[in-house]
């Protein structure tokens, strides 16, 4: 299944295929030349580093993601939430695999899940001074959830539906809420004061990590959770 047999192809189609390949190659060459001949730009590294002390974190990437361009991160999380809503609207979760997990998967899950949760916490904290941050930590949490799902355990991954929905919305709610709350203090939307920036970013990142992890896990499960009594 899924294999193609190229035994009988007429010359006209072969010519068309080779013409397309040539056109694609020319396009790739043209793109490569265009990118190569761009003038070397200094980028924004300098201005970001000089504004780093008032951003509340020590890592320029995190400062840009969560402070200077926090609005973009807010929109990214909104896109993630919208995709989850679309997936949930399409149908119910597919039923789990019929056969029980093999020994390798069970042992691997037991070894990896606590490690992944610990790694998520570390990446969240280390994001303020090095590579890391909310998205990476959320991806680790989602990976732990995917492992648990693959081995057929259901308990910790599908909490009662109102808790699940609360945690899914928590990241966006906290982010947007803090953005609006600083407006009440007289600043613009998402403009943190340098004095409270570190604490605010930490709160936002923690909520976002949990929310992103649960959203990615729900996307992987692929549908609405089955309510008791519903036909699977």
């Amino acid at each position, binding site marked *: 299944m*899924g*294999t193609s047999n190229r035994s009988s192809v007429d010359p006209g189609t072969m010519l068309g295929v080779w013409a397309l390949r040539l056109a694609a190659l020319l396009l790739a060459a043209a793109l490569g030349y265009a990118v190569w001949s761009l003038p070397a730009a200094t980028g924004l590294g300098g201005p970001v580093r000089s504004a780093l002390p008032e951003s509340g974190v020590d890592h320029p990437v995190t400062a840009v993601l969560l402070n200077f361009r926090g609005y973009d991160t807010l929109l990214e999380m909104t896109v993630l939430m919208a995709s989850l809503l679309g997936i949930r609207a399409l149908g119910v979760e597919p039923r789990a695999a019929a056969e029980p997990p093999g020994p390798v998967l069970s042992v691997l899950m037991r070894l990896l899940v606590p490690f992944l949760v610990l790694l998520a916490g570390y990446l969240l904290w280390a994001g303020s001074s090095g590579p890391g941050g909310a*998205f990476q930590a959320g*991806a680790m949490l*989602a*990976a732990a959830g995917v492992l648990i799902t693959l081995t057929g355990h259901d308990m910790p991954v599908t909490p009662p539906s109102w808790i699940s929905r609360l945690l899914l919305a928590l990241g966006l709610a906290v982010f947007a809420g803090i953005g609006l709350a600083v407006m009440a203090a007289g600043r613009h939307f998402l403009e943190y004061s340098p004095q409270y920036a570190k604490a605010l970013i930490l709160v936002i990142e923690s909520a976002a990590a949990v929310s992103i992890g649960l959203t990615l896990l729900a*996307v*992987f499960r*692929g549908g609405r959770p089955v309510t008791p009594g519903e036909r699977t």
Partner: protein
Amino acid sequence: MTEWLWLLDAGLALALLAAAARLVVAPDLFEAVALFVVFGLLMTLAWVRLSAPDIALAEAALSTGFTGALLVAAVARLNRQERERTTDGDE
């Protein structure tokens, strides 16, 4: 030392192109998904070579790991639907 780095970069670029080319024409979907994960890992190395560790982390976790898992689940679902459809049509 820098010559070895040039060799590494060239090898990485060629491997990326080869994986992408094979992945696009692969007739078997599972082979294509496996090559996609390989491509993602090579891409992670490429980001590290470009001095972007944050993007490398995100690429490894999300674009390789998570999208790979989603694609495998999708291929499994497609195969199951195909199997169910052919067994229904045989009756």
